[in-house]
């Protein structure tokens, strides 16, 4: 009997596919998310929109909040640690969380090195902006990938950019002759072995979710149609005017993402989505997606 294997780590992400992972900051919110059909929750102290507003250093959540949420719901519970902060990750693993998000939403602890995730029994999800970044994280042991998007903005534009970059990168690798793949691995800054694998299979070796800016059912459908395996919604649920209804609507839109009449139905009278933010008005030093490499 072997625990913490690659199969069980990447396998849990496969079980989350077609589902919605929701950010929650209290056990009550976690219950609402579970009742709405979320396949997992991300336990936080603050949602990204509030982290953005508060400024300062954002760290791992209080273990008490995470534990309370784990006790309240039966679906998998994820939690975030800072990029490179392997001690926070060790704490989260000790708490028994089901997945760790090494996240650019928190203030990075190490600007050079991401966590060496293969040492852990608990699986990790990491953000990416393009194929090279995705493959670097997978090489370190990430068993699940998500787009970074631009968290806390309610603006889907960056998530779309990142998803298209990943998918485009995969198509390019498939089209290239094998004798040009070493050079492409160098361009991507990605391990050749993974580059060769994608050339052959035409897909990432792990599940890839969309994150960072999803605020409506149509946003979820857009990302699924662009090739996402599932959806993370951060501030989009509990910063909307009717969280319960929004949560249910985004779950249905993710399942029935190609059925526009269902998306139309669930989009009716949702109330106000979270307030949006134009990426261009954010000072470059406050962008979250550029954290990590």
């Amino acid at each position: 009997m072997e625990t913490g294997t690659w199969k069980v780590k990447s396998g849990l992400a496969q079980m989350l596919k077609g589902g919605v992972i929701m950010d929650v900051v209290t056990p009550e919110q976690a219950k609402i998310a579970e009742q709405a059909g979320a396949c997992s929750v991300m336990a936080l102290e603050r949602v990204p929109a509030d982290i953005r507003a508060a400024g300062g250093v954002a760290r791992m959540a209080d273990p008490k909040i995470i534990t309370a949420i784990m006790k309240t719901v039966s679906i998998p519970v994820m939690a975030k640690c800072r990029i490179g902060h392997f001690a926070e990750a060790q704490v989260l693993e000790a708490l028994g969380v089901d997945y760790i998000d090494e996240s650019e939403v928190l203030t990075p602890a190490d600007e050079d090195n991401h966590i060496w995730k293969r040492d852990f029994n608990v699986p990790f999800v990491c953000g990416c902006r393009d194929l090279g970044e995705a493959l670097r994280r997978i090489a370190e042991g990430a068993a699940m990938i998500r787009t970074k998007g631009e968290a806390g903005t309610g603006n889907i534009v960056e998530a779309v950019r990142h998803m298209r970059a990943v998918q485009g990168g995969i198509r390019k690798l498939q089209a290239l002759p094998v004798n040009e793949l070493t050079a492409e691995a160098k361009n991507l800054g990605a391990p050749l072995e993974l580059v060769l694998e994608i050339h052959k299979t035409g897909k990432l070796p792990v599940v890839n979710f969309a994150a960072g800016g999803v605020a409506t059912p149509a946003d979820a459908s857009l990302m699924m149609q662009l090739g996402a395996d599932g959806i993370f919604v951060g501030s989009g649920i509990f910063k909307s005017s009717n969280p319960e209804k929004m949560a249910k609507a985004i779950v249905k839109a993710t399942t029935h993402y190609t059925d526009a009449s269902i998306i139309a139905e669930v989009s009716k009278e949702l109330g106000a989505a979270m307030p949006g933010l134009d990426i261009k008005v954010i000072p470059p030093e406050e962008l979250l997606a550029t954290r990590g490499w």
Partner: protein
Amino acid sequence: MRIGVLALQGAFIEHIRMFSILGAEAIPVRLPSELNGLDALIIPGGESTSISKLLYDYELMTPIRKLIQKGFPLLGTCAGMILLAKKVDGLDSEPIGVLDIEVKRNAYGRQTDSFETDLDMPFLGDEPFHGIFIRAPVIERVNPGVEILCQLDDNMVAVKQGKTVACSFHPELTDDPRFHRYFLSLVTGDVIATSSRR
């Protein structure tokens, strides 16, 4: 033959891939109309709470229960097994309820307790079958009429009742099609050679 794979949430593509390898047509099912003309239905792994809510929201529960009354073959893996059970510890909505068993969710603990191990299933051949258990449920009790297909230590992890099969583990995450082939043989009524992995 046409196999439907419930595609509301979870690892449905993996089942579709496995049936394709075996030469059976497998299609995703999201709406009641897509249940027409099927020879069997697969309930995949995923989150049982998410899947069960979507089953009710899109009115799939009643037509599936109607099919069951006619002895329609079903295969449930992990969350799928939870949804096929008549009694479930820790699920707040009513499962499909076709298998006369009692199931406990997350029986082995959380993700860090998820594991892989070899399973002994002589009806699949001499070679052990590789079991991948992810936040897996176990069968705590079986009622008469249910056949135990596999035990791991003291836990029942695969059962059969009529033409319905369920297991705690994920045969769809392996490259070994024997478990799926066994299910297909129940659907068609064929006797299969059990020894080959190919």
